[in-house]
């Protein structure tokens, strides 16, 4: 049971850390100064969530691993983030699509998580919910602006959606870890979010005059450490310092 809880928290932590890492790459290179600030802000929220979650995961594991050991000293195949968050930034439309798909899931997710029997998770959820609401609003506004903007922006936004769509199915997967913890009242059943997610996405795409992709094959594997090739390169940057200078204080 403790193992399952550890694995579950780690997934949430990895999702947050990896998305935060990706967003951090934008710094100083965004299309406007406001977005430089905005994306850094979203990145910061995710890093903050990752810290709380990794710390709690370390506590649950009980082997003395802290947030940094869990983030910087695990190997590629041990990371259990979903594939969506590790996808490259691409152009601004891809970054926005990735964020929108993810936050449209995470807002209802954290809302439900507030009722978790696990008090720490419930407390993390209460804070994360507010952040997710902002992330969703921010990204949805951009989806609409780009979708209903110029011909070029519409095409880029639609391309980004098609590119990332196959990675959205994984958000709703529930393996045994999730099922057991849902039954215990600890975890959120992702299936219970599907309708709301589709409604949010559908509504925003409607306003944005974008087309909803057809349901198709969903990419999967992140939860069991089978990532895309992009992920290993992200790790080389993220983990370099802790790998090159093991065991030091910073």
């Amino acid at each position, binding site marked *: 049971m403790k193992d399952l809880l550890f694995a579950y928290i780690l997934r949430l932590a990895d999702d947050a850390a990896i998305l935060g890492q990706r967003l951090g790459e934008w*710094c*100083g290179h965004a299309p406007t*100064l406001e977005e430089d*600030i905005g994306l*850094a802000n979203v990145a*910061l929220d995710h890093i903050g969530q*990752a*810290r709380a979650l990794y710390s709690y995961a370390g506590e649950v594991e009980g082997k003395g691993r802290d947030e940094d050991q869990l983030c*910087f000293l695990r190997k590629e195949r041990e990371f259990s983030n979903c594939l969506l968050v590790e996808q490259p930034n691409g152009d601004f439309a891809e970054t926005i699509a990735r964020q929108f798909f993810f936050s449209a899931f995470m807002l209802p997710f954290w809302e439900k998580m507030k009722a978790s029997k696990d008090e720490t998770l419930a407390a993390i959820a209460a804070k994360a919910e507010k952040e997710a609401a902002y992330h969703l609003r921010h990204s949805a506004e951009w989806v609409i602006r780009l979708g209903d903007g110029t011909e070029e922006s519409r095409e880029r936004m639609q391309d980004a959606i098609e590119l990332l769509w196959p990675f959205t199915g994984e958000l709703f997967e529930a393996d045994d870890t999730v099922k057991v913890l849902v039954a215990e009242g600890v975890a959120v059943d992702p299936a219970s979010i599907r309708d709301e997610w589709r409604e949010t996405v559908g509504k925003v795409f409607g306003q944005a005059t974008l087309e909803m992709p057809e349901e198709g094959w969903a990419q999967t594997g992140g939860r069991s450490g089978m990532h895309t090739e992009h992920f290993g390169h992200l790790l080389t940057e993220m983990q370099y310092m802790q790998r090159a200078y093991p065991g030091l204080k*910073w």
Partner: protein
Amino acid sequence: AERGAAFQARIDNEEKIEPNDWMPEGYRKTLVRQISQHAHSEIVGMLPEGNWITRAPTLKRKAALLAKVQDEGGHGLYLYSAAETLGASREELNEQLLSGKAKYSSIFNYPTLTWADIGAIGWLVDGAAIMNQIPLCRCSFGPYSRAMIRICKEESFHQRQGYELLLTMCRSSEEQKEMVQDALNRWWWPSLMMFGPSDKDSQHSAQSMAWKIKRFTNDELRQKFVDATVPQAHYLGLTIPDADLKLNEETGHWEYGEIDWSEFARVLKGDGPCNKQRMKARQKAHEDGAWVREAALAYSEKKKSRRGQQAA
């Protein structure tokens, strides 16, 4: 001439000048130049620090660095707003930056080579910036003065954070302490140059002093910085890379060696280690983002015209 005298009287009386008040053209120009240079410095300054966000050694430091860089973007925004009150649009100012016409602080043309540089920037570069900026909190132009009050508060937080980062490294291991010493060696002299040319070579000083845009000379501020910083370096157990540095027991000031003004001039002219790279990064961000800004504009116009139709 009468208006000019009245204006100077208000300044001498420590009154704040506000955007709608009459002001001499030179005053306006000087302020636009100074405020926009300052804004540009915040923006370009995001790059050397941004270079380490993806490699920060701990999550706590990554968060702090993200927050710091975000603050710098925010400072850029306040300052562009202050410049806008003087009739200089952001697009125009940005255009001047990208074309190389406008300057930004030369310090950001040096590279961040190790994680210790992040601490060194906080400690030395933000430290020097604060020395320059604290007097600007009392600047005669209201919007600039108010922006500086806010900015100084945040900068001083960044400065302490940078120093604490270096302290942690120096106390953690000899290898890290060497990284810190190396960072100090590379950032010390460029930090001293941040205060601008020596008083005897400074062009704009006298008039700016009269207008209370400036309240101390470059050399005065530089000396304040050296006096504040040398003991901090010693507390870290570091050596300032200046063989001529010594405490003048009489004046209580730390006397420092000759600054290499040819390096200062060269980097200012465009031949620093990263000038081209910084400009290329900003230009690329601007070009890559063009379609996004166009889309946002197109959307907001569509929205307006739709609203217009509904109203009609």
